[in-house]
């Protein structure tokens, strides 16, 4: 569901425009480099967000994804849900299973079984021990018939990849329809398309995507996508233990908190989101893996130390004025 309730549209630079809206349980930011295209761009964005919500939301009983849980049989699905599942499985494969859509029941078992705003911040200890995800390879796709079959007892969580997919789709569609450069940020996972403004799109990197614009270092993005994943937002407590929303498929539990924030730039928002989420799951090994993939990334350890890889600029442009955290080059 897409709603208003966000800051009013404003002009961006000499000719651009920016607006915000609420969707997918988060704030979505839209920026265009030609202000006169803002209204048309917003219509396109709302259409894409509404479509992805109706297809993939695990919090709406009327969303299409629930039809997959009917009888463990092959179900013909819409092109959008088919694309979202294909993207999720591709991401699972490309991350070696670190980002796996079959964590659906594991996430629910941890207590994240409704829109996050309705998840109780405190609660009793979990009834059952976390169990590993069934594994992305158990999802059966028939591309020609556009059917999906899930074994009984397997639920999908497309949250991460579907949100990024929506950002990519919307940005591309806006750019091709309006001719304007576009930035779409869905809760901090952002995609850019079309011509970028002089100097690129300026983006603040912060632990919380709902934080103020001046709350962290600022980088300019010119193409592809940028995504951040954090273990210190979207948290809740069960039995005195802090949980967060990034689940390690190997354990079915919240991933280890080696990093508090990982930001990655990639060729698309889907790829950036895949890498930033996987980095949280990979823990200490993330730095080397991101470097090997050539993905510019900024990783913040829990002690506050910042590590940058593959060409991500070092923190020297923090608009809040706070000095950059020390970098431990030994890791």
């Amino acid at each position, binding site marked *: 569901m897409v709603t208003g309730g966000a800051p009013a549209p404003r002009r961006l630079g000499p000719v651009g425009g920016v607006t915000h809206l609420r969707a997918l349980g988060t704030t979505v930011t839209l920026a265009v480099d030609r202000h006169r295209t803002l209204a048309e761009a917003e219509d396109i964005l709302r259409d894409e967000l509404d479509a992805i919500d109706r297809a993939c939301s695990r919090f709406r009983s009327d969303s299409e994804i629930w039809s997959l849980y009917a009888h463990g049989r092959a179900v013909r699905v819409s092109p959008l849900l088919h694309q979202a599942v294909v993207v999720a499985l591709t991401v699972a494969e490309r991350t*070696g299973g670190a980002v796996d859509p079959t964590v659906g029941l594991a996430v629910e078992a941890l207590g994240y079984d409704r829109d996050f705003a309705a998840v109780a911040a405190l609660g009793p200890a979990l009834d059952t021990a976390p169990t590993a995800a069934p594994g992305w390879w158990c999802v*059966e796709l028939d591309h020609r018939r556009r059917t999906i079959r899930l074994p009984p007892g397997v639920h999908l969580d497309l949250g991460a990849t579907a949100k990024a997919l929506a950002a990519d789709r919307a940005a591309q569609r806006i750019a091709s329809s309006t001719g304007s450069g576009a930035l779409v940020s869905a809760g*901090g996972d952002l995609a850019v398309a079309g011509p970028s403004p002089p100097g690129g799109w*300026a983006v603040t990197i912060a632990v919380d995507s709902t934080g103020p614009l001046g709350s*962290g270092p600022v*980088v300019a993005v010119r193409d592809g996508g940028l995504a951040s994943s954090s273990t210190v937002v979207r948290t809740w407590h069960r039995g005195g233990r802090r949980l967060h929303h990034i689940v390690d498929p190997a354990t079915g539990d919240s991933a280890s908190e080696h990093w508090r924030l990982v930001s990655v730039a990639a060729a698309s928002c889907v790829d950036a989101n895949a890498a930033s989420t996987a980095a949280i799951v990979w823990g200490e090994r993330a730095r080397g893996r991101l470097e090997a993939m050539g993905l510019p990334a900024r990783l913040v350890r829990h002690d506050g130390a910042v590590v940058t890889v593959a060409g991500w600029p070092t923190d020297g442009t923090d608009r809040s004025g706070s000095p950059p955290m020390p970098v431990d080059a030994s890791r």
Partner: protein
Amino acid sequence: MVVYAYRRSRDPRHVAFERVRRAFRWTVAGATTAVIVIVGVVAHEIPGRSTSAATASNTTPAVNASPTPPPTPTGGGGSPSPPVTAPTPTQQAPTAVSGGTGW
């Protein structure tokens, strides 16, 4: 020569036997064809663990029904691709915030 004589025989018993053999051959050939057609139709009509999932597109994962993950899960799918240009430092006023969130 004996065979030739046998085939050319007008003995009613031999003629009948020849007809039975011919009918048997046609029955075997027909049954084989029917089995091939039925198997093809069933494989075509019942979706599921078909190889089409793995070969339909180069951009999709090689989804299979194995109870265990492929030995090299990232081998066929590559890895996330880097952007054309890496982020650069800037002093511009920011447009958006990238941070932790979920859905």
